[in-house]
């Protein structure tokens, strides 16, 4: 009907509540989780097939006639992003099986999770702005609900409402920007926009369209000063959802922005690359600085996500192949690193029942598997050589240095140094020997450490063998640049 992974996701999103209802009858609380995980796995497999096809030069079949004619366009960029999104979804879903076991209505949770993944997949594979916007809203709506899923507590509900209101404001501005583009060109198809606006002299209305589209996506991507919803939402959400939000949802904002920027708004590149350079530095600095004083583990990680969004923006500011490669690679790497980090935080919270960093002292002795994986993710987030974060940060640094934005590169390095200040604090707390670790702590169940370790192993693999993904990221960047 649409594309195969998306079809599968829809199918499982609809059927999971049914399975959940059945599971309640036969008293198998984990059934819906397992079912949903299987669905995501199946979808990931097809997505991977699609990626291989596009890499091989074959354009996979998308609906060319009927109701959904030309609504989707599968290129390397879209299929690579899709694999990241669904792949992280697998980890989050496996993790949730145990984590959300005691929650009521967990089948609803999985339906929403699959829906959110489906929304993201739609956003990166859409061929026109309207399809993009529809899936964008699908992703947003499901994520509001997921943030506020533990609705018996005040904090998630408050965070959810805040997220809902701010993100809706963003969506409204985005829609306004899209309508301006439509008014100017009469088309919303990316190819059409590129031909209509790509080589024309920009008029003032295009600047205003840029502003609104940028603001709309920027709220979701948590670019300072549009980021204020993020720390609340990411820390209040269930941990697997935080992993998804930090790992890929906010990055999907950037991915969507990339699509529009390099087609409809390419003629303004000299203008927006300067704006992005400034915003990149502000975003990374503010994110890392604020993370320094946090005592709440998840809040600290949430702020660090803002910092990493800043690094990714730097690649967009460069706007070259290297820059885009860096951004796409960092999106993949950040999904792995922050996914691992948030899932580890989730496993710790699951055992400890507290998000306070001070309560976690000495946990490495009780939860060695989690502590080691967490440390790997943290070292990768700092950007230590040998782990994947280093490769993408280096690529980003080189890309900005190439286009005479060396000050952004220096900001990346300084920020990495500052960020070590709070990242390493987590490691230090975990391996502390002065006080006895809390009695509640013991090793996380296998369904929790297994997905964490899969991600951690990928962090190491892509760190010592970056060319496994580097070339794909580079070709994805070329696919974007060849759209005009």
């Amino acid at each position, binding site marked *: 009907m649409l594309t195969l992974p998306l079809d599968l996701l829809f199918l499982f999103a609809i059927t999971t509540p049914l399975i959940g209802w059945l599971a309640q009858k036969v008293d198998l609380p984990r059934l819906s989780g397992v079912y949903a995980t299987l669905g995501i796995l199946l979808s990931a497999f097809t997505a991977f097939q699609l990626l291989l096809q596009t890499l091989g030069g074959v354009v996979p079949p998308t609906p060319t006639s009927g109701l959904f004619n030309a609504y989707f366009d599968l290129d390397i960029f879209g299929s690579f992003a899709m694999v990241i999104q669904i792949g992280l979804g697998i980890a989050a879903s496996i993790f949730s099986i145990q984590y959300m076991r005691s929650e009521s209505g967990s089948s609803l949770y999985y339906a929403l999770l699959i829906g959110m993944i489906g929304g993201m997949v739609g956003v990166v594979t859409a061929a026109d702005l309207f399809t993009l916007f529809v899936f964008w809203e699908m992703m947003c709506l499901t994520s509001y609900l997921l943030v506020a899923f533990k609705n018996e507590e005040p904090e998630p509900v408050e965070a959810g*409402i*805040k997220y809902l*209101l*701010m993100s809706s*404001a*963003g969506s409204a*501005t985005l829609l306004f920007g899209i309508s301006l583009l439509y008014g100017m060109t009469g088309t919303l198809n990316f190819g059409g926009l590129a031909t209509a606006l790509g080589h024309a002299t920009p008029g*003032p209305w295009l*600047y*205003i369209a840029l*502003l*609104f589209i940028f*603001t709309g996506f920027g*709220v979701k991507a948590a670019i300072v*000063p*549009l980021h*204020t*919803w993020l*720390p*609340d939402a990411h820390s209040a959400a269930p941990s697997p959802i935080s992993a998804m939000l930090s790992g890929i949802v906010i990055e999907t904002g950037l991915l969507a922005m990339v699509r529009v920027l390099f087609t409809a708004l390419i003629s303004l590149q000299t*203008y927006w690359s300067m704006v992005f350079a400034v915003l990149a530095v502000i975003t990374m600095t*503010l994110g890392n*600085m*604020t993370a*320094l*004083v946090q005592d709440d583990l998840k809040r600290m990680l949430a702020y660090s996500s803002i910092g990493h969004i800043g690094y990714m923006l730097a690649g967009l500011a460069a706007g070259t192949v*290297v820059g885009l*490669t*860096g951004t796409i690679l960092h999106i993949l790497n950040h999904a792995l690193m922050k996914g691992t980090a948030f899932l580890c935080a989730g496993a710790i919270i699951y055992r400890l029942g507290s998000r306070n960093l001070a309560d976690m002292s000495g946990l490495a002795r009780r939860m060695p598997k989690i502590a080691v994986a967490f440390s790997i993710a943290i070292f990768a987030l700092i950007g230590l050589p040998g782990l994947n974060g280093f490769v993408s940060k*280096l*690529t980003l640094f*080189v*890309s900005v240095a*190439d286009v005479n934005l060396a000050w952004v590169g220096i900001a990346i390095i300084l920020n990495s140094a*500052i960020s070590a*200040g709070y990242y390493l604090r987590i490691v230090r707390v975990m391996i502390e020997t002065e006080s006895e670790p809390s009695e509640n702590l013991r090793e996380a169940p296998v369904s929790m450490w297994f997905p964490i370790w899969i991600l951690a192993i990928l962090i190491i693999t892509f760190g010592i*063998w*970056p*060319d496994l993904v*580097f070339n794909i990221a580079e070709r994805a960047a070329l696919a974007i640049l060849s759209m005009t």
Partner: protein
Amino acid sequence: MLIDIHLLAWLCWIFPLLGAAMAILLIRIGRPIRDYAVVFFTFLGFLMALLMLPEIVRAESFNSPAFWISLPGGGSISIGMLIDPLSIILANIVAFLSLAIMIYSVKYVEHEPGQDRYWFFMSIFITSMLLLVLADNLILMFIGWKMVGICSYALIGHYYSDEEEHWLGGPDPFPFRTPSRAGLKALLVTTFGDVSLLGGIVFLYTYSGTLSFLELYQTADVWLAALATDPGALTLLSVLLLGGPIAKSAQFPLHEWLPEAMAGPTPVSALIHAATMVKAGVYFIARLIPVFFYATWIANYPEAFTFFAVTAAVGAITAFLTGTQAMVAVELKKVLAYSTMSQIGYMILGLGLAGFTSHSMTLGLTAGIFHLISHGIFKAALFLCAGVIIHTTGSIYMSEMDLSRRSMRYTWIFMWVATMSLMGIPPLSGFWSKEEILSLSFETGQFILFALALVTVAFTAFYSVRFMGKVFHKNDEENQEDKEASPIMLVPYGILAVLSVAVGAIGPWFGEQIEHIFEAYFVDFLGFEVHSGTAGSIAPAAQSTVPLTLLLPLLSLVMIVIGALPAYRFYVSHASSSEALVEGSGILQRIQMFLRKRWYINSSINRVFVDGTIRYRHLVQKYIEDPLDCLFNEGIPRLFSGLSKGLRRLQTGLLSINIQYILLFILLALISIVFLVVP
């Protein structure tokens, strides 16, 4: 060829790596199984090396770059294996000696503490040593180079809890040293050289643009020309690159770490500090020789000769210097350590001589590598014997050793065979390889170096007979209950002793084969050709070597007798007493003290670097450390936490304010568009 040679090269070092994993993973199953599993993986590594051996006759190089790390901006680092005669020879030596010593270790460490650590680090060491010799580029080689250093540090400090029984040095008035200190010293001194080597690699890269050995060979004319245009660059490169080998191979002036490295278990000393790791420097110099030879003799950059001059001088001085120290050492393993340095000095001398004339490249390479092979075999055997002896007597001092020749007959025989090979008694392997170095130094007309090398022959003979006499020939009464070593320990050094006889039996042919292969590889295949017109000054001398071929061995035999005879009278036949002789003469006493104090080199280095540092620490602390400490540990954190707290106020958490940020952003951007773009 059944298996792809590229695959062999990879597996060769991957198998020991798996062995290292087994060392940890199989603990729960049981110690004997684990021990044999580790040895088995070492054996597999050796098998892979052995299977590569037939390729040596093709005298070609196979480069197997496996994967690349592309650097953004175009550059790349390959990680690959280089299979050429030099690396195959080295890989075989390393893998074979590792296997012998690992088998021996099964029994040796049976009752030692920290066996898991021992097996793990030994396997990692073998892995990294093979990686070092098989690496196809400087970076990968440097990784192996550092890893062997770290393993060496860990294994020297194996008895890191520093019980008194593991102390080294003494007896009074000489200071005792603990194993942990010895390990640290080894790490520090070799790191000093490593930094220099890394500097050299980076310096080289700025000119050559490549780090792959083969590409360095192939583009030698281009980058050497670029280097030669900058005065001093070639000298600087030579010195920087040589720093690493000099420290790693324990050559003067960075040699003082090796005697104390004997604090580790004896198989460690045998494998790392005698047979393999300390040869890494020899290997690296051999790798570089074609390039510098090309620069000196074909491209005619006289500056490149520095490389050979420094190498040869360092080798000869070390051979002589440490040979004298070996004559007075009181600990068995230290005698062997000094002897190792002295013999490596010979190898380095041989390699250095490769560049002294326009046609001596392959001769020098052959001499150095041949001596490396024969020394690896007999010195490993000697160390393994020493391990048994120290175990049996429970003492590190030769004065407290008194073993029965009858009940330990095999050990006695094997050790004598290895010792005679060390002395250079024909027709054992040591004789042929040493003879090549001596004759090369004579033929190239370097008579000072020749004299140093020749005198060292006498020293070698003296200390060899001395330690054998002190260990086995103290008295003739056979009243001891010493037991022969268990077969699992006896067989490895037995094989090594037999091998040094076997190599000796075919010595001239063996040396010739190596020479042919190097000739075919470096000259014919890689094309480091020699212009026939620029024949060196000693070409006539080389032609008239018919009497020389007889004269030189005769001369060295005389030197052996000169050295061995007094030692025999003092220590074997007890016809006269060395103590009485020394006590009777003030000069001899002073010389003995001078040598025992290691020529005061160790104490001078200590005084300058260690005491010097301690003396200036207050000044450094007051004017450098404290201000920096204040800045970095107080100033910067205070600045950032202040900023951080300020920024935190922006994050009010109030929805109405947060929404206003969006509005504010849009408004500001609109204003900027209106004012900046519209006009």
